[in-house]
């Protein structure tokens, strides 16, 4: 019965392949079809979530019927179940948003690329095999290249080209890392790699792990490989930017964290951790400082998103259980907040005709529900108490201090102050400058209000979500448990 969870992968795939046929039948059916498929995917993901969290055992899918390490296995543990559900829900919301927001032709190809972006991120999180991770990473990346350039303007093409070059270098280095690890161990299965980790030659382990981290850092938008991110976020269609920020970058960070913790017995691990702490802190500092100077709100929020992602990476690279739990909590909160922000900004973009600072003046009078939602999300990102991010940011800073990285905590606090400056500047512009007549806000505003309510709910009572997050965090940190759950067949002779 559990193998039916493989529909999580099969459903988006077969529906994406069906779109060319649907186009011949009736072109206007495509956008509603997208909403339908994401709804079904949400249903399956919800069922998987319920199964994994009520029984406490991960769902392991054997592709082809072969037991690992002979075949490829998908490991849907607590973390994967949580995030596959988040991916499905965010995609559903963005499919509804695409009904109005995306009008550039050819819309059938947009629908195919949308479904495959969702599939790529789901696969990256659910897989248990390192080369399969590479394949799904490439599915996500190539779909992202196409979707970044989808609007076919000059800026979009240049952003996409930067992304392609950096992404190509990253994936080549990732593959060299995989080659080294395969040469040293003879297997590609993640659980078996964790088992054999302490017998790998130290130099090979260090070089291999560093190359893999480098390759994943491009997808995970860490300094200095995130030069593509602000341009790509700004130039992509509005629903796609929300998806990038909500789950594509999270899938990259998750893969980074997963591989890092699986190979923790390999020698040289702590020096790689230190390198990651430095990269993550630099990401936060540079992103927040750049956000201060932006005139276009979408670009400003893109820099803010990169900064928060640096914070998540910092939490994961501390090497402690508290750090990992805090990081997962921040991932969940950040997904909700950034979905709201990019949805709202996109909505303002299509209602007002642009996303520069001027378009946001007087929004409090023109579109009060949207402005309220942006205010809630902005206050949340800064870390105001009673909103969700306050709890996760607090835990991250505490975990950083506990792990002994005093300077990193100071820099992160400084970056939060900078964040407050530009968010409150935006809020001031919305409510206290300019004026205008009230515009009718439709279904999108309703979704924005629901998301804002969730933010406040988690802020007031974080305990239920925190319990789920702790289980997800121990899924990543507790590698012995992971290896025990995968029924490896003995292969050596």
């Amino acid at each position: 019965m559990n193998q039916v969870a493989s529909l999580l992968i099969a459903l988006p795939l077969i529906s994406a392949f069906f779109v060319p046929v649907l186009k011949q039948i009736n072109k206007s059916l495509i956008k509603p079809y997208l909403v339908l498929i994401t709804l079904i995917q949400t249903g399956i993901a919800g069922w998987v979530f319920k199964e994994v969290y009520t029984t406490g055992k991960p769902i392991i899918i054997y592709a082809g019927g072969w037991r690992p390490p002979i075949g490829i296995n998908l490991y849907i543990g607590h973390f994967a179940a949580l995030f596959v559900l988040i991916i499905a829900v965010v995609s559903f919301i963005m499919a509804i948003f695409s009904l109005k927001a995306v009008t550039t032709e050819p819309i059938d190809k947009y629908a195919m690329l949308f479904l495959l972006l969702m599939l790529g991120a789901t696969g990256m999180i659910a897989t248990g095999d390192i080369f399969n991770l590479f394949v799904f990473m490439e599915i996500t990346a190539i779909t992202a290249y196409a979707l970044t350039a989808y609007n076919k303007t000059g800026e979009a093409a240049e952003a996409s080209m930067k992304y392609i070059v950096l992404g190509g270098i990253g994936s080549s280095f990732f593959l060299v890392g995989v080659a080294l690890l395969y040469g040293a161990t003879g297997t590609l299965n993640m659980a078996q790699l964790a088992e054999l980790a302490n017998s790998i030659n130290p130099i090979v382990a260090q070089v291999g792990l560093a190359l893999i981290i480098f390759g994943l850092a491009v997808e995970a938008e860490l300094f200095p490989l995130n030069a593509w991110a602000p341009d790509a976020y700004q130039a992509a269609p509005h629903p796609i930017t929300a998806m990038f920020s909500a789950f594509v970058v999270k899938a990259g960070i998750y893969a980074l964290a997963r591989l890092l913790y699986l190979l923790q017995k390999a020698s040289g691990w702590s020096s790689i951790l230190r390198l990651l702490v430095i990269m993550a802190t630099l990401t936060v500092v540079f992103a927040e400082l750049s956000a201060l100077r932006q005139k276009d709100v979408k670009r400003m929020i893109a820099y803010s998103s990169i900064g928060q992602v640096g914070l998540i990476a910092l939490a994961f690279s501390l090497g402690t259980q508290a750090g990992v739990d805090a990081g997962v909590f921040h991932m969940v909160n950040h997904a909700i907040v950034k979905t709201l922000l990019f949805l709202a900004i996109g909505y303002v973009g299509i209602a007002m005709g642009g996303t520069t600072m001027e378009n946001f003046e007087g929004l409090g009078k023109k579109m009060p529900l949207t402005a309220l939602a942006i205010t809630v999300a902005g206050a949340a990102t800064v870390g105001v108490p009673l909103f969700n991010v306050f709890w996760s940011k607090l835990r991250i800073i505490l975990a950083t201090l506990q792990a002994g990285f005093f300077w990193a905590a100071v820099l992160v606090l400084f970056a939060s102050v900078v964040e407050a400056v530009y968010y409150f500047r935006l809020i001031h512009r919305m409510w206290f400058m300019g004026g205008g007549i009230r515009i009718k806000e439709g279904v999108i505003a309703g979704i924005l209000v629901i998301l804002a309510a969730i933010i406040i709910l988690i802020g007031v009572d974080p305990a239920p979500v925190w319990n789920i997050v702790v289980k997800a965090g121990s899924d990543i940190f507790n590698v012995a448990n992971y290896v025990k759950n995968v029924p490896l067949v003995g292969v050596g002779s």
Partner: protein
Amino acid sequence: MLKRALAIVAILIIGYWLAQGLSQVPFGQDKMLVSKYYLDHVKEQTGAVNAVTAVVVNYRGFDTLGEVTVLFIASTGVGALLWRKKRKRTAKTKGSVVLTTGSKLLFPFIMLFGMYIFIHGHLTPGGGFPGGATIATAFLLMYMAFTTYEISHKGFEVTEGFAGMGYVLVGLIGLAIGGYFLFDWIWQTWHLGTSNIGRLFSGGFIPVIYTIIGIKVGTELSGIIDNMLKEEVKE
């Protein structure tokens, strides 16, 4: 100048570091762990003689599904980025006599050769991807020889969609019959062709999948060629 020197220094450092790592993975030594199992059991578990094909389609078939998806994304992406309201070919020079007669003559033979490659994937090196690429080459030759040749875009897109759905359907039938996604139901449940190892009618569902992949890759690559060779018609 400074940028060039910095780049060379950085590259040499990276190269030295990679060489250090690789020196610990000795060349030519037997480091097989999972592969040993594959080589020992490939004939009776999958029915293919070509171990690489068995690994690609059967043992690690999930990766191949992802690979087929990647090509599909490339073809869709190229179609989305180069989309125009009306397009037509703008080549001006017709090919030489050798090219025009030769391509018309060789077209069926190249298609046949491509089909041979993907049908015999479980017996000889090759498989769906080189077979599909060969079929696309036949179409490319026709494009280069004639200035007004074009493929029927609609027909190719629909074929591509159906071939992709076919692959996922084969996997879903495996889920229904054997209980696992991408289970080889032809070899392991119906036991078709178990006495034929080394001949054409063996290999479980490998020929079926490779035929689907061959058709898919052929139509996709031809679609990419068609998209790139056309330019916008301004009215």
